[in-house]
């Protein structure tokens, strides 16, 4: 059963140094506030996972929280590069970043296998690409019926999955809608689950496209209004595209980045700092 906690409490209770942490949100419902709280709490040596790491991953990497990144596509969507990610990979700043990369379908199916209690999933892909052989989590499996060779991806079971949703009720049931991506699978694959929500409401009303996660698959729910900013939350607010464009400038330079993080992320908190 989900406990309704503050974001600081929830991150403090659920996210440990060295954990494998999936912060999912496929182009929508991106858990920015939760990621920034992880930064404020100074977590280290995390294996961070997301299909589409974007600005908040750039921040986590640039602030030195990540030992490893498991991902599919790491960019500033519609704008360009993630400069902190690139600096980590190209120059090892602030420290070297181990990377494990997949196609979106491959990483998606790693979650699906995890959610399904299976050790692996099967897909058509990877063969012929240099992705194959770069990770131990992609191998080959032979169809016992046709003899065809297919790609197998290892189940992914994060220690913690963090997602953002629109609403929770007081019992900790969670409702999300719009593009929900791989959020359900990332939740059901994880050992522990933290959901930030725009608001806690008295009652969750069924709605078109609504996806409900029952409280008994969640550990903590934390209110984080505006928790996906500068991305958007359907039904609540729009994407602030200028912030994405601006991030390109902020993140290009290490000092500019650190100063911005100090002011905008660390400043307002009782954080341990970096």
């Amino acid at each position: 059963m989900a406990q309704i906690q503050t974001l600081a409490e929830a991150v403090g209770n659920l996210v440990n140094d060295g954990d494998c942490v999936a912060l999912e949100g496929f182009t929508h419902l991106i858990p920015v506030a939760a990621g920034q709280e992880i930064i404020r709490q100074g977590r280290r040596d995390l294996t961070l996972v997301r299909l589409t790491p974007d600005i908040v991953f750039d921040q986590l990497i640039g602030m030195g929280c990540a030992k490893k990144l498991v991902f599919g596509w790491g960019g500033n969507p519609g704008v360009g590069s993630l400069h902190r990610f690139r600096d980590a990979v190209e120059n090892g700043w602030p420290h070297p970043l181990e990377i494990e990369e997949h196609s979106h379908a491959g990483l998606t199916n790693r979650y699906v296998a995890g959610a399904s209690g299976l050790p692996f999933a099967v897909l058509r892909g990877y063969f012929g690409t240099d992705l194959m052989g770069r990770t131990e989590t992609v191998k080959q499996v032979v169809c016992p019926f046709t003899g065809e060779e297919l790609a197998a991806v290892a189940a992914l079971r994060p220690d913690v999955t963090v997602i953002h949703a629109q609403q929770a009720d007081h019992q900790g049931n969670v409702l999300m809608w719009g593009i929900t991506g791989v959020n359900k699978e990332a939740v059901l694959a994880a050992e522990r689950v933290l959901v930030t929500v725009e608001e806690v409401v008295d009652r969750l009303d069924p709605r078109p496209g609504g996806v409900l996660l029952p409280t008994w698959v969640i550990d903590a729910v934390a209110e984080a209004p505006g928790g996906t900013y500068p991305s958007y939350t359907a039904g609540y607010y729009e994407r602030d595209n200028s912030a994405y464009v601006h991030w390109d400038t902020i993140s290009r330079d290490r000092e500019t980045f650190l100063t911005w993080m100090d002011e905008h992320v660390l400043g307002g908190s009782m954080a341990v700092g970096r």
Partner: protein
Amino acid sequence: MTATSTARGEQSIEYSPDDMMIAAAARALRGYRVCFVGIGLPSTAANLARATHSPDLVLVYESGTIGAKPTRLPLSIGDGELAETADAVVSVPEIFNYWVQGGRIDVGFLGAAQMDRFANLNSTTIGDYEHPAVRLPGAGGAPEIAASCKEVIVLIRQSHRTFVERLDFRTTVGFGEGPDDRRRWGLRGSGPTLVITDLGLLRPDPVTRELTMTALHPGVEIDQARAATPWELRVAEQLTTTEPLSEEELRGLRDLQATQDHG
């Protein structure tokens, strides 16, 4: 980018090489029913096709939006506009497993930082993988789009930076090393059937699968295309010239671009 000017009757139309690529891509969608769209030029092209000759073209975006009918150019593949205008929004596992891998998509668009003569693509690293000169965003949905869409259209500028003898990293399979590799790897789509560059169009040779220049954009000479290609470029016996941008196309394109608010 230099603007190209072409005379159509009395009027002279000014457009860029990118505009030409987008228009050529939009035209190439004629006759297809279901198109898998990425952000950027492909999204513009697909929406231009909808705005001109193919109003019923079904747009599928990786974020799970099936039948999106955006009224403005989306900012990302997960733009709220796509979900709001879609016939259905499904999960990402469902999009990849049932709709892409299930063979439901007629044509998919891809771009890349590098392409080789067999239309294999690199969007991962420039330079050595372990110590890259440039770390690119990575694979995303490209490998499976290339694997399972019935056909693939590649949009890429033609130069020694993008056309390379040997990819620094093979992110996405076009035809591997030749005609048998797709079958051998269990990839059920036909692979890239068209490459659109700023200089013209290339199509795979029916036998060898090596890319062959089949058309040039108006005003482009074949020597330009040869010079922009690091390998000995194959050229079709009947090399054609693409139609210049029509007024309708350019108007449609400008209308679309006007909807894009970059904050």
